[in-house]
Structures are given as C-alpha cells and as structure tokens.
C-alpha cells in the first residue's frame, strides 16, 4: 500500500527526517511512536505532500507520489486526519462530510456515517468547530471514511480525549480496517497503539530506531516508555 524509501526532510538548514524507510501493507494498522520533535508529524505531512522540502521516494499503491500536490494524493486514496482535527468554522458538520470528493472504491454512504456517529447526525447543521473535541475527532475520521480513502494518515487522534472516547476511536479504526482501510497512525499512547495496531515504528531524532510488533511492545514496555519520555 505505502512504501517510503530513504526519505529525508527538513526545514531550511535543519534536518528533521533522515533516511526514513518504512512499509505499510494493505489492511494493516501501523503506528509511529516517538517523543515530541522526533519527526512524526513531519513524516505524515511529507507523505501527504504538505511538507515540500523532502528527498527520497514515497509510493502509494505502486504510484510514485513524486512532486504531486496534496489534492492529487488525496484523490489517489490518502485520507488526512490532522492533529488539530481540521474542523472548519465556516462549514457545517454535514458540509464538512460532503466537502471532499469520493476517491475510493468503498466510500461510506452518509447514512452509514450518521448511523456509526449519531452525535454527528444530531449536530449536522452546526458549525464544525463548535463540536466538542471528541466529536471533532469523530468528524475528522468520518470525513475521510466517507471519501473512501484507502490509507488514513492519522496524527494523534486520541490526544486530549477521555478514555471512553479513546475507546470509541479504537472501535472505529478497527471497524474501518475490517473494510480494507489501511491506517498509519501517529500515537503516543502505547497501550492504545497495541489495541488497534499490528506493528509499530519508533522514531527518534528523525530516524526509525525500532520496528516492533505487539508482543515486542508488551515485553519491552518499560524500556519503550523511557524512549518516549513518558
């Protein structure tokens, strides 16, 4: 599904990512862990095409993304779930859901979105940025599922949410996955990561320093927590 090959990225003179290579297979849920400043968000932005100062190769479903602008990448099946949740002030909830074009073979119909997210149905006429934090996160996920995006790029969807809401996000990601959606997830919450993901990459100072599966994470939890600085 996604292949990142020797990707480097920076801001001006500063290098943020160095020779990052990773792969995500279709139907997998993979997390990127690491301290703040490790380069996780920059990596997601580089894949989306929002960070332009990059070297290396990014392939989606065998297509080299090269210098494609973000909207072309979205149309190839990337679903963007930004760390600030991307709730518009000038669009209603319903408009936010129908704004993106349908890009994948299995878009969620609006009726299904509202069935899975009753809170969004109840507030469909409200300005998107008036939703609670948890509802905004649901909206960000629902928006890309309605697009039929095939690979979700989720930047810390659980940040600042209550355990109940974190659980709901996990349920939705697992459900999306059963429908063939692939997920690349930036996540600080190791416990949550093991409940939704198959594999984990640990980023430190712009490099991938570990590639782990769930058993590794459980066996080495204390060591990893110190890695993450938690």
């Amino acid at each position, binding site marked *: 599904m996604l292949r990142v090959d020797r990707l480097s990225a920076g801001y001006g003179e500063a290098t943020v990512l160095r020779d990052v290579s990773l792969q995500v297979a279709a139907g997998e849920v993979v997390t990127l862990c690491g301290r703040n400043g490790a380069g996780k968000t920059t990596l997601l932005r580089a894949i*989306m*095409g*929002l960070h332009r100062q990059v070297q290396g190769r990014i392939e989606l479903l065998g297509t080299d993304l090269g210098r494609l*602008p*973000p*909207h072309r*990448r*979205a*149309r190839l099946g*990337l679903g*963007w779930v*930004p760390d600030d949740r*991307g709730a*518009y*002030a*000038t*669009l209603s909830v319903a*408009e936010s859901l*129908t*704004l*993106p*074009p349908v*890009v994948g073979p299995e878009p969620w119909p609006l009726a299904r979105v509202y069935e899975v997210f009753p809170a969004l149905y109840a507030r469909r006429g409200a300005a998107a940025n008036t939703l609670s934090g948890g509802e905004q996160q649901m909206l960000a996920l629902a*928006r*890309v599922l309605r*697009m039929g995006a095939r690979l979700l790029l989720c930047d810390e969807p659980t940040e600042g949410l209550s355990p109940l809401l974190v659980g709901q996000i996990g349920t939705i990601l697992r459900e999306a996955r059963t429908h063939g959606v692939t997920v690349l997830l930036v996540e600080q919450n190791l416990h949550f990561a093991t409940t939704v993901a198959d594999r984990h990459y640990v980023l430190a100072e712009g490099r991938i320093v570990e590639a782990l599966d769930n058993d590794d994470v459980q066996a080495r939890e204390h060591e990893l927590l110190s890695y993450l600085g938690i």
Partner: protein
Amino acid sequence: MANFLEQTVNGLVNGGFYAMLALGLAVIFGMLKVVNFAHGAFYMLGAFGAYLCLRELGLSFWWALPLVPVVLGVLGMGLERAVIHRLTRLDPLYNFLLTFGLTLILQDLVKWRYGVSANPYEVPAALRGTLRAGSFEFPAYRVFVFGFAVLACAAVWWLLTRTRIGMVVRAATERPELTGALGIDVARWTTPVFGFGVALAGLAGVLAAPMQAVNPLMGADLIIVVFAVVVIGGLGSILGSVATGFGVGIAVAWAQAYAPPVVAQVLVFVVMAAVLLWRPAGLFGREETPA
C-alpha cells in the same frame, strides 16, 4: 422628516455601492489573500463600459447591465492568470505594487483614449420618474439601484452559503492547506473567484454610470472609502462587508445632512481608526488563528 427619509435613501444607495465593491474585495481577499487595489479601476471600467456600449455599439443600459460585468470578469480572469496568481508566494508589498500599478495603467489607458472630462450617461427611460410613498418622492433610478444592490448581495450570499461552489470557496478561504489535503484543487478556484470579484465591481460601475459623471478617476475617489469599509467590517468577512457598506453609506448621508461638512468627510476614517484600535480584525472579522 422628509429630509431625513431622503438622506436615508441616499445613504442606502451609496451604501449599496460600498457593499458591492467591498463584497468583491472580501471574496478575492479570502480566496487569494490578495488585496486588490485595482478594484476601483474595474468599477470605473464598468461605468466606461456602459458608456462605450451606448456610444460605440448603440447598446442600451439594459444590455450593458449583464454584458459589461461578464466582459470585465473575463478580463479579470485573464489578469489573474497572467500576473495576479504570481503574488501568492511573494511578499505582500508586491501585492500593493502590482495592483496599484494596474490601477494606474487602466486609468491612464482610459485617459489617453477618452480624456479626463466627464461623460454624461442618461438614466434609462423606464427609470426616469419618481416614486411616491405617501408624501415622499424618491427618484426611481436610485430606488432601483438600492434594490439591485440588495439583490446582488443576497445572490452572492446565496451562492456562498447554499451551493457546493460556495462551500468549496468557504473551505479554501478558511483552511487552504487542509482543503487541499482533502482532495480539493484550491488553485483551480482562484481564477474564477478573482473574475467574479472584478465582475461585481464592474456591475457597480454600470449602475453608477447614470448617477455620476463617467470619468477615468471616478473609481479612485470611491475606493478609498471602500477600503475603510473593508477594514471596519473585517478584511475577508462577507457579512461584514455588506453590513458595513450599507451602514457607512447611511452614516455618511446623515452626517452630510445634520453635521458640519468636515464631519461627513472624516467620519469613515475616524471610525476606521477606532475599530483598528478596539478590534484590529474588524467588527465582523475573526482573529487569525495560528496554524
């Protein structure tokens, strides 16, 4: 009382012009982040377009009303493609230099061909009389202009809030990067949006032709007030431009009627300065949230 009503109607008519021009500026600024200092020149071209339609082509006001804005809209799209779109990656200073330079070029082209003297343009025959309401009489053309301006603003409002195009424009205006990442080609919309804003200025110009002496500098005088309107309302705010446009029109008309002449002249700018001190984002503007 009669005088008060008359002044109010005059204020509403002037406010209609301010609102239409400020609305175009707001839509353009929202989408392109370009402050179009050439907006007054396009308004002037609208009035000249109506004048030339009649003189060169024998086309009446009713033909000029739809035709001139469309032609100017196409001209605006051409200019956006040719030069304006280059501004997005440049320092805002270039925005000022380019669009102000365009103003000078357009004004001087018209001056060079037609001179600086005012060209009379008659009120269309059907709107020459007066309308009576009780004991009050209003010039029919002014009432028509007010009604047309309200309709034009309402139509733009409808377009922006009730159609898919409007939704895309709102999304791209508010969060261009996010909107691109959600699969919308934001760059594709900047050209038509600029053309649309220019067409609105042209429409205001056609409407102004029968009320004002058509001359190359007519836009330069008006646009200064319109920029004050835009600052008061909040740069890029649609509702702010329209409400402030009409509000300023009425306030100036009342000041002209009931206060020393100097008050009417400086009122708008005093209000602008006060708003800048009190609410720098404008009455209807939202504070920029850091991305």
